[in-house]
């Protein structure tokens, strides 16, 4: 949707780096950079998927945007929400109101609280300091009805929900918040096909209401099905941001060699694996992060980290891309 991508972004993440202070041996401290120079943006009404392998620190992006990183994390770079820089105070003020998180699993619900109450609490917070019980209940019931959750579900505890129900309850917390930006962190693993389709439908609906949706996932096929743009995450950074239409045919429209290789590795394409492994954050290669595994690598690739640059309708971090 080119018209939407040209509207003013609701979220702009630029050159974001997240590092953790660690005690290595004794009192010696070292810092481990998990995310480096990550850039991504989301416009209203758009779904942007950040796709990367499991355990590569993608969730930290969500936590950084919400300002709920653990205390030993340090961040640099800039995050802007609706054009305004996200400081700790601003994050605290708009958390749950302007930005909502849809977490990974039912473990993110309080095990001892009825799920309806948890959704009502989200609705109350989103509507400022005057909690109106009746209004919150009405909003929660509407959200439940919308997602085909039976009225009696509101009195259930998280452990009594099925996987699909739990997912819909989690999405409902975002719906009732009326947030302008929804961040969904790995929302589909462990669900059957029907439940995945249903969840993705919920996201499309949220986006069609004019919200921006940032979908963080390891599942590229899910991402391709629903997203408008795909940001490819590799070794702690984004190597390419491409419109979803570019993922077609033999991947000729794609810009970065890693994205092309990822596309070709899918079962429906060549099913050809990429040799080698992603580097660990404390053993990153010289120059371009993908260069040791890249079929197109030249001596210039080791000279320095390539900058993110615009190529056609997308962004890429490769000196050879055109």
């Amino acid at each position, binding site marked *: 949707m080119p018209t939407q991508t040209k509207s003013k972004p609701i979220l702009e993440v630029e050159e974001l780096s997240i590092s953790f202070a660690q005690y290595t041996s004794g009192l010696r401290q070292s810092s481990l950079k998990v995310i480096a120079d990550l850039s991504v943006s989301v416009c209203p009404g758009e779904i942007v998927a950040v796709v990367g392998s499991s355990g590569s620190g993608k969730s930290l992006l969500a936590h950084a945007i919400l300002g*709920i990183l653990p205390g030993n994390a340090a961040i640099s770079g800039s995050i802007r929400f609706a054009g305004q820089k996200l400081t700790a105070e601003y994050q605290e003020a708009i958390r749950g109101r302007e930005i*909502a998180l849809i977490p990974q699993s039912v473990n993110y619900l309080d095990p001892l609280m009825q799920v309806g109450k948890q959704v009502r609490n*989200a609705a109350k917070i989103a509507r400022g300091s005057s909690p109106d019980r009746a209004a919150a209940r009405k909003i929660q019931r509407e959200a439940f009805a919308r997602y085909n959750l039976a009225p009696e579900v509101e009195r259930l505890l998280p452990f009594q929900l099925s996987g699909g129900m739990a997912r819909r309850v989690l999405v409902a917390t975002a719906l009732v918040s009326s947030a302008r930006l929804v961040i969904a962190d790995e929302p589909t693993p462990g669900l059957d096909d029907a439940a995945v389709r249903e969840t993705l439908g919920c996201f499309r609906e949220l986006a069609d209401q004019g919200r921006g949706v940032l979908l963080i996932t390891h599942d590229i096929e899910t991402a391709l099905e629903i997203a408008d743009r795909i940001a490819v995450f590799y070794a702690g950074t984004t190597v390419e941001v491409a419109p979803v239409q570019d993922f077609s045919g033999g991947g000729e429209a794609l810009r970065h060699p890693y994205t092309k290789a990822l596309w070709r590795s899918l079962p429906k394409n060549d099913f050809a694996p990429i040799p080698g492994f992603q580097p660990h954050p404390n053993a990153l290669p010289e120059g371009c992060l993908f260069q040791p595994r890249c079929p197109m690598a030249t001596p210039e690739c080791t000279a320095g980290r390539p900058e993110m640059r615009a190529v056609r309708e997308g962004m890429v971090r490769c000196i050879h891309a055109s």
Partner: protein
Amino acid sequence: MGLVPFILKKLLRMAALLIALCILSFWLVSYSPLDPVQAYVGADMTRVSSEQSEMIAEYWGLNKPPLERFLHWGSAVLHGDLGTSMIFRRPVAEVIGERFMASLALMSTAWLLSGVLGFALGAVAGMKQGTWADRLIKWYCFTLASTPAFWLGLLLVMVFAVWLGWFPVGLGVPAGKLADDVTLANRIYHLILPALTLSILGVANVALHTRQKLVDVLASDYILFARARGEKGLQLFWRHGLRNVALPAVTIQFASISELIGGTVLAEQVFSYPGLGQATVQAGLRSDVPLLLGIVIFSALLVFVGNLAADIIYRVVDPRIRKGESA
């Protein structure tokens, strides 16, 4: 499993426990060097000839085999007859009942105080993890956890009774006052120091457990999500912390009744408080076998009821167990 079958099963288990306990303690006592005749006669033993003492032994059935003696005693216990205390020359059940009422005031005060105070301290330490408040509370708890009850009791007596003179040195009522003249205020006044000793010690356990549980809860995914939804500070604690932490705290507090009984024995001894604990020590030192066995059975019952109460409360309060069964 519903609540009624659950309780029935627990009662069955209690019966088994009591039977095993009776057999074991009777067996231990029968092998101890205690001579019941000597314990009964006391200082007049030198004036009792060996024929006379043999006659007493025969009258009591002491020359019969242990199994027969046990069955004799056991059937009496089943009929509610715990025998006669040799020190007090009164039925054991009566002595235990009277002593227990005195101890009950002491134990329940200490139990409630330590539970409430310990939970509050643990909650503060957990919420303020890593700050000076947390460190202070932890230091206090570790110090107390390694403090023997009798030593703390002696310390309190020294400071508040001897040096400052604020509280009486010991006993449950003022010395030399007629039983009819003793007021409730008198009793409470004498209760304060021993109750304080016991509750100060009881705090450490529940506080440290509550703190650790709260730290775990605060690091959980659901707290992270609650923060992502904009909840923070006290609101976060009330909504998600309190309930998740209160359940283990209640269990611990009920399960700690056994430790409380142990502490009471020492504290009552230090303060000469006429409770069950003091009676235990006397019964042990002066070879009052019937009283000792009676107290053993009674304390086991008390501990069992405490644990049972914890189990039942857990089932009533924890909606996961309650709903999981009805579903």
